[in-house]
């Protein structure tokens, strides 16, 4: 009952000194809001990086060629033997048949543009194999992914994104199946039949300066089709290994790297193979994110501390100002505990209100920043509760000393205080 009265009293006191109360709260407010905003932005960045990495699949191992003793000034022309050849992949698959489920390959045919009267879309033509279909989690809105037969027959079919469909046809995905698109490459016309539409997902690497309409999306064609078209030998600079479930991808990546280097690149002075497990990259990435987040949260905590000291200072001033009131209360029968509780509640109320406004402000700032960055961030109820709890603890911590000082005032001296 006394607590309720004390809260009422504290609120009345805060109302009576609006400016001072606001300034007192400011430290707590800024601290809490920055912590919340940081958590949100961090979560958003983390989420977008994780989802783009998740697209590639955590079971994947990314294998690529790297230049040994890379020197910026030295120009190196890749030779045929530097590339990964098909038979190497077959050997690799055979060597690790227990661990490797499939190998994802792609052949890029470069950027292009598809025009339909006055409408157009920017695209990248990419030839992909069945392994790629497996590793990339495409959500099909219409039609189907490629079948083995499509690959073997090198069919002239294409999977396009829903963005592409919107930009070129402005029609429902279902309606564009079977239509033909045409592109020009090196002065030659190529045409493909749309066999499926997939849902475009943000990769997190988009350049925000490019208008949405101009954004390039991938058009997938069967790998064989792409190889025939490019008339190049089958060779790759990179490929992805899809590991079987339950396989330690970190270890497998190491094994693949040493196998490839031992077998094919031992005598190559310029080029070597690197293999990285996505899982480990994801872990490293999230570890890095966490430490950045922690560092900024630390700055927020310092501002909270400064805010807390501000609260303590104002409480001491307020107690000195109200010495006579404290004396009167004691004369009227308030025990030391009553007085202590009163000022403690006041400090907690200031901190809680500051914390509450801080949470709202923090969510607002977080929303705006994540919007600008083009991500979506969220904050858990738990973190909010933790922040509010934290501000309450601050109130107790920084309110206790002044409150105790008030409680221990001698009533006679307090009454006589001018």
């Amino acid at each position: 009952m006394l607590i309720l009265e004390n809260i009422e009293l504290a609120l009345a006191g805060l109302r009576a000194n609006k400016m001072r109360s606001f300034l007192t709260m400011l430290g707590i407010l800024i601290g809490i809001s920055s912590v919340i905003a940081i958590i949100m932005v961090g979560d958003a960045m983390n989420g977008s990086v994780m989802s783009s990495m998740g697209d590639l699949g955590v079971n994947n191992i990314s294998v690529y060629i790297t230049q040994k003793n890379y020197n910026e000034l030295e120009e190196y022309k890749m030779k045929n033997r530097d590339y990964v050849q098909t038979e190497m992949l077959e050997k690799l698959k055979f060597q690790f048949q227990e661990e490797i489920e499939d190998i994802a390959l792609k052949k890029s045919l470069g950027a292009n543009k598809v025009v339909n009267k006055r409408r157009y879309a920017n695209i990248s033509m990419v030839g992909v194999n069945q392994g790629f279909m497996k590793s990339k989690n495409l959500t099909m809105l219409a039609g189907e992914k490629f079948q083995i037969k499509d690959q073997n027959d090198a069919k002239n079919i294409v999977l396009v994104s829903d963005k592409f469909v919107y930009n070129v046809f402005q029609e429902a995905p279902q309606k564009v199946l079977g239509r033909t698109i045409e592109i020009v490459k090196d002065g030659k016309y190529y045409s493909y039949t749309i066999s499926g539409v997939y849902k475009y997902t943000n990769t997190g690497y988009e350049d925000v300066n490019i208008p949405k309409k101009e954004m390039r999306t991938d058009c997938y064609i069967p790998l064989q089709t792409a190889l025939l078209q490019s008339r190049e030998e089958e060779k790759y600079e990179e490929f992805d290994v899809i590991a079987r479930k339950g396989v330690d991808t970190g270890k497998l990546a190491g094994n693949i790297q040493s196998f490839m280097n031992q077998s094919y690149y031992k005598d190559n002075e310029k080029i070597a193979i690197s293999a990285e497990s996505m899982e480990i990259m994801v872990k490293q990435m999230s570890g890095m994110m966490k430490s950045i987040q922690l560092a900024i949260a630390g700055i927020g905590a310092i501002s909270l501390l400064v805010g807390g000291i501000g609260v303590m200072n104002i409480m001491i001033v307020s107690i000195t100002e109200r010495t006579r009131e404290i004396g009167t209360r004691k004369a009227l029968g308030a025990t030391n505990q009553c007085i202590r509780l009163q000022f403690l509640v006041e400090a907690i109320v200031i901190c809680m209100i500051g914390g509450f406004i801080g949470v709202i402000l923090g969510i607002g700032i977080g929303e705006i920043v994540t919007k600008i960055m083009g991500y979506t961030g969220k904050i858990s109820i738990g973190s909010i509760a933790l922040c509010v709890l934290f501000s309450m603890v601050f109130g107790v911590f920084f309110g206790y000393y002044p409150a105790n000082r008030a409680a221990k005032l001698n009533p006679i001296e307090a009454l006589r205080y001018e």
Partner: protein
Amino acid sequence: MIQLEAIKKQFYIGQPNQLEILHGIDLQVKRGEFVSIVGASGSGKTTFMNIIGILDRATYGTYLLDGIDVTQAKDRELSKIRNEKIGFVFQTYNLIARTNALKNVELPMLYAGVAKKERMERAKELLTLVGMENRMYHTSDELSGGQKQRVAIARALANNPSILLADEPTGALDSETGRKVMDLFQELNREKGITIILITHSTELAEETGRIITLKDGRIIKEHNLRGKE
């Protein structure tokens, strides 16, 4: 009812500047009395009042308040006794700032743990008693000196105290409002039978009370019964 025996008060005990303010005071106040304590400044009036109001403890002597030995009580018990048995009226009113009259009167009952509804009813009753029923929701800075003192008197009466202890209650008021406050004390004493101890330096005011006790240099030098009343 109030029984003070051989009260001595010393300061700076055991130090070279040890000082004795009260040199053994005996005083009895019966229920329903209106007693005034007069004395020039430096006579020990304030120290004596602090002891009666148990804001302070006597160094020697016994003090029985309604049969309770106050000199032996702990701090926490003293708060409770102050709360229940003593009503303070100060020269400077000492209303709680930014708080309305009603809440001020409720305060001692709040500390006594009286339920909200009862508190409010009693506070309204008391404010009506002191003639402040139309100003219940005004805060202290919206009240005149006389009105503040009336609220303070209502507050002092909140827990039905054994004594109303008034320290120069008219000291900060002009003579007309001071007169009204004195009339209120008289009325409370006469009609409600409330025991009042008035501390003042004005012999004029003291003469209106039932008994005048004159303090000088920490001793009672004169006791003067005016009404011959119990």
